[in-house]
């Protein structure tokens, strides 16, 4: 299976490395939240790491990613260093949004992370607009939107997909279907739960993949991004996944889903899943993973120390950048 893919060991291990960076960063943030170090919200991406990792592995800094409120993973996978993400959630001047955003407003246009958002839906339209820019300027780049199942009953979903389709824009839409929009089940929210089918009615290629299988995501995203770069228009990928932590840190996780369901999905952990496959296929050894684990642990520790010791923004700067001049 894995051996059939034209991927080398280095690619597999770099996907593993990226997923582990997201996981360890999120675990650090959850711990920091519990310790009272995060003054606002904290929406973790634990359990969904394979999606950001598998998609962003194909992107350069010149490609534009637009994300949603659960966007730490997208920021990290797009190239925002963990110390800037942690510092941002700590409200520090060294955060990727200079302390203006927090968990839901991560910005790093330097690496093509054009923003995460506290509003569900706009990222779909903005990625469509990035596609429009790239097409107008004749650049080989791609706009990518990450959003949850909660966005697909929203007008932005239908309006954005339709516009990208009629104008053949280089956009890739990635729906992270984690089965719950905050705490409302997708099975309750729509009669047609086949998101890929819904997207395909706008006449673009739309596939549904196991969002906890980083290789499946990587392969599907590779196709979609190649298609967009070649000027062949938009594509849609539904990634079926699950967040194994509450909607936001500190929130109750009962009343809308069962402990059994959560435990079942924890067993389908994307990081362990890749490791098992690589070990079974003799594509990597325990030592490879131990090395990565040590690297990532050190990276996140350093990032945490950096954030903790960073200054808060200067109150005198509070009205800067409302206008360009």
């Amino acid at each position, binding site marked *: 299976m894995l051996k059939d893919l034209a991927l080398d060991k280095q690619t597999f291990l770099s996907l593993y490395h990226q997923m582990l960076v997201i996981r360890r960063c999120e675990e650090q943030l959850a711990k920091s939240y519990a310790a009272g170090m995060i003054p606002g919200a904290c929406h973790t991406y634990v359990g969904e790491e394979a999606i950001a990792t598998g998609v962003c592995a194909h992107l350069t800094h010149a490609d*534009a990613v*637009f994300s949603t409120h659960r966007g730490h993973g997208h920021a990290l996978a797009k190239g925002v260093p963990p110390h800037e993400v942690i510092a941002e959630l700590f409200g520090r001047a060294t955060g990727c*949004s*200079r302390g*203006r*955003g927090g968990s839901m*407003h991560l*910005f790093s*246009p*330097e690496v093509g992370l*054009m*923003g995460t*958002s*506290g*509003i569900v*839906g*706009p990222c*779909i*339209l*903005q*990625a*469509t*607009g*990035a*596609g*429009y*820019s*790239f*097409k*107008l*300027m004749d650049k080989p780049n791609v*706009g990518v939107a990450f959003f949850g199942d909660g966005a697909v009953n929203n*007008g*932005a979903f239908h*309006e*954005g997909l*339709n*516009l990208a389709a*009629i*104008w053949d824009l280089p956009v890739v839409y990635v729906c992270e279907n984690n089965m719950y929009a905050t705490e409302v089940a997708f099975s309750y929210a729509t009669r047609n739960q086949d998101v890929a089918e819904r997207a395909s009615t706008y006449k673009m290629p739309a596939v549904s993949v196991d969002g906890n299988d980083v290789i499946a995501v990587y392969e599907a995203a590779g196709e979609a991004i190649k298609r967009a770069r070649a000027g062949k228009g938009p594509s849609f990928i539904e990634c079926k996944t699950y967040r194994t932590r509450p909607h936001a840190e500190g929130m109750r996780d009962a009343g809308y889903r069962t402990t059994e369901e959560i435990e079942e999905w924890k067993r389908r952990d994307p990081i362990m899943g890749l490791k098992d496959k690589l070990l079974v296929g003799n594509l990597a050894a325990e030592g490879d993973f131990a090395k990565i684990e040590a690297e990532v642990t050190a990276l996140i520790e350093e990032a945490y120390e950096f954030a903790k010791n960073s200054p808060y923004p200067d109150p005198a700067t509070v009205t*800067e*950048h*409302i*206008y*360009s*001049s």
Partner: protein
Amino acid sequence: MREVTYTAAAREALAEAMEKDPTIFVVGEGIGPRGGNFNTTQGLYEKYGPMRLRDTPIVERGFVGMCTGAAMTGTRPVVDFMFFDFILDAIGEMVNQIAKMQYMSSGRLKMPIILRGCIGIGGSAATHHSGSYYPIFVHLPGFRVVLPTTAYDAKGLFATALTSNDPVLFLEHKLLLNQKGSVPEEWYTIPFGQARIVREGTQATVVTLGSMVRKVEEACDALAKEGISIEVIDPRTLAPLDIDTVLESVHKTGRLLIVDETFAPCGIGAEVAMQVMERGFDDLDAPVMRLNGVHTPTPYSPALEAVIVPNTQSITQAIHDLLAE
């Protein structure tokens, strides 16, 4: 100097800017081969084609959100709403995304987007084609709100908008679109935040804008025959607001009236009056007065429509009342 209409003057600025800057594109309903419902893009499609003159489906939220993403990725969208009332379908994209993007990205993203449309009461357009709404946007940090009254100002202010890196609301009153005025053929810009002194006077200051300017002038012409001298100021842009010019005038006249077609509560008159009170209270010889459109949706019948807008008679009366204080 030759005379052209208000619409043609703005179109000249657009045509010249599009010639110089290949990243400018226009979206809207019927702005392609048709040239715009109000001829805002007449003749441009033939020159620049569909990528830069983009007819859209009726999806205001969709194309405003799309243009947000485009502005974030290096192009300059001009959204032509035809009637400005339609902008309300896109208000979330405007308020939560467009207006906040520069701030939340700590100035690393620019937001060079123009949102233009026809405003105002007249011609029995009824309530979904007669709104002005500008006080709402003046209230919010992040927007430039521009309201030209003359053809000369339409061209110069649109030229400034087309080179600005801030989101600009460019509001064109329907009763002004076909008004002719002297307009230079060459490119020129009028800075935002610079009021126009429409006429000089000594006994009272009237601040007014849009279609009200001409009515105030008519009232002042008649009053001049009675020996009454009124200074009239058109702020031209409401954000930024040139309050200094108003203060200088009130220092001279001691009396202030604000005439505005839009509603009184939390409106432009309230804002101007408060700022003058804060900074020029000692110059006032009488309480500030305001004259506004009636606080109601816009009715259709000419018999009803006529009574909700200030007219020459009510303006004359208001000035007399102010002078009697």
